[in-house]
């Protein structure tokens, strides 16, 4: 049986913990707002870009002129760009991504396809450090400040890999931000590119292209990869903060609950002590009669 002092000490400790988790919750909330704003600012660009590429790609019948659109005849090696957070304490956010990645790798390996990974995020890097998976590169600190430059660097590396035959297909696995309480790992094929198909009504327009249709599309396709990577980074960063906020909120609630039960035990123990003392006094007085 814990003594009164032990229980008191524990209550104080739990209270301190809840202060910390509460502070972390508020920090995450503030960062979430910032990240969400950044994502929303980027959104129109991504949207327009999709439209753009859809329009250009719609007129293409023969994809073989564009190496980035052409699927390889035989897929032997696959590259996975895995985006995770740099930090933990955000519930199952990173674990979900890593489990999805592990599943992806296992499935490909079962088909005899070789997989190598490019990590974007410290948690991914640490996870694959001691696992029998080939890691090509590891990037960290991308989500602190999501930048076009980073997406471009990673993207051009991937394109080069695809074009030189280092990888026959390239996938990206990131956390899709559905809403504040729900984020879902989602897998998208980056290369070869599958452009979104056009709505029927817009096909009627005959565009004039400058310099030429082919030159324009060739120029645009790599940028499309960068845009997709950038969007994934934004989504993951927003998701990370949302997940951390939820996790910290939970932790704070659990702390409160724990303090409540501990206080109850404390009061019970105190009362039991008083009762016992009273019994002793009464018993002593009785014996004196």
């Amino acid at each position, binding site marked *: 049986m814990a003594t009164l002092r032990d229980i008191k000490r524990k209550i104080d400790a739990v209270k301190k913990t809840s202060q910390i988790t509460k502070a972390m919750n508020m920090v995450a909330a503030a960062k979430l707002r910032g990240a969400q704003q950044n994502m929303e600012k980027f959104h129109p*660009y991504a949207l*327009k870009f999709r439209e753009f590429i859809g329009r250009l790609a719609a007129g293409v019948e023969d994809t073989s002129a564009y190496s980035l659109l052409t699927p390889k005849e035989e897929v032997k090696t696959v590259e996975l760009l895995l985006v995770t957070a740099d930090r933990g304490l955000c519930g199952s956010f990173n674990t979900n991504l890593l489990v999805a990645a592990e599943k992806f790798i296992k499935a490909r390996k079962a088909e005899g396809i070789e997989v190598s990974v490019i990590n974007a995020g410290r948690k991914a890097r640490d996870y694959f450090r001691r696992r029998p998976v080939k890691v090509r590169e590891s990037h960290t600190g991308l989500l602190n400040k999501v930048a076009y430059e980073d997406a471009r660097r990673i993207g051009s590396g991937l394109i080069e890999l695809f074009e030189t035959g280092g990888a026959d297909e390239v996938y990206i696995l990131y956390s899709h931000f559905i809403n504040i309480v729900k984020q879902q790992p989602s897998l998208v094929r980056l290369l070869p590119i599958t452009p979104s198909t056009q709505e029927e009504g817009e096909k009627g*327009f005959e565009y*004039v292209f400058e*310099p030429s249709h082919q030159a324009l599309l060739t120029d645009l396709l790599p940028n499309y990869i960068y845009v997709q990577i950038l969007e994934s980074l934004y989504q993951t960063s927003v998701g990370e903060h949302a997940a951390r906020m939820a996790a910290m909120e939970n932790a704070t609630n659990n702390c409160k609950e724990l303090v409540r039960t501990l206080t109850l035990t404390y009061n019970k123990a105190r009362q039991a002590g008083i009762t016992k003392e009273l019994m002793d006094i009464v018993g002593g007085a009785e014996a004196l009669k």
Partner: protein
Amino acid sequence: MAEKIFLEIVTPEKKVLSETVDIVVAPGEMGEFGVLPGHIPFLCKLRVGELRYRQDGGLRHVAVMGGYAEVLNNQVTILATAAEAAVDIDVVRARAARERAERRIAESRDKYEFARAQAALQRALARLKIAERQ
């Protein structure tokens, strides 16, 4: 003239501009082009340079750091890598960038380095030119 053009400039960082204007002149890869209401559908690559548009009788300037343009149904959409309206340009920073780029061109050892430095110089010059117009 009753008809107007809707001009929209977006970059990865933000939506820079979204206005109803009379005419747009943009720096195309193969030369400047102007867009008036009723323009045919047009897709084009942009180079680093100056975009002008006329609104309520006044001419405005925007520095565009390369990208793409689309004209469709009296709507001009510019997808730029970066873009700044004249008032937003940081002249001090642009001057510093110009000097840095000039130095890098002088010191460049291979053609890639040279090309990068030259692109940086172009961006700085475009910004400065437009800042002066203001």
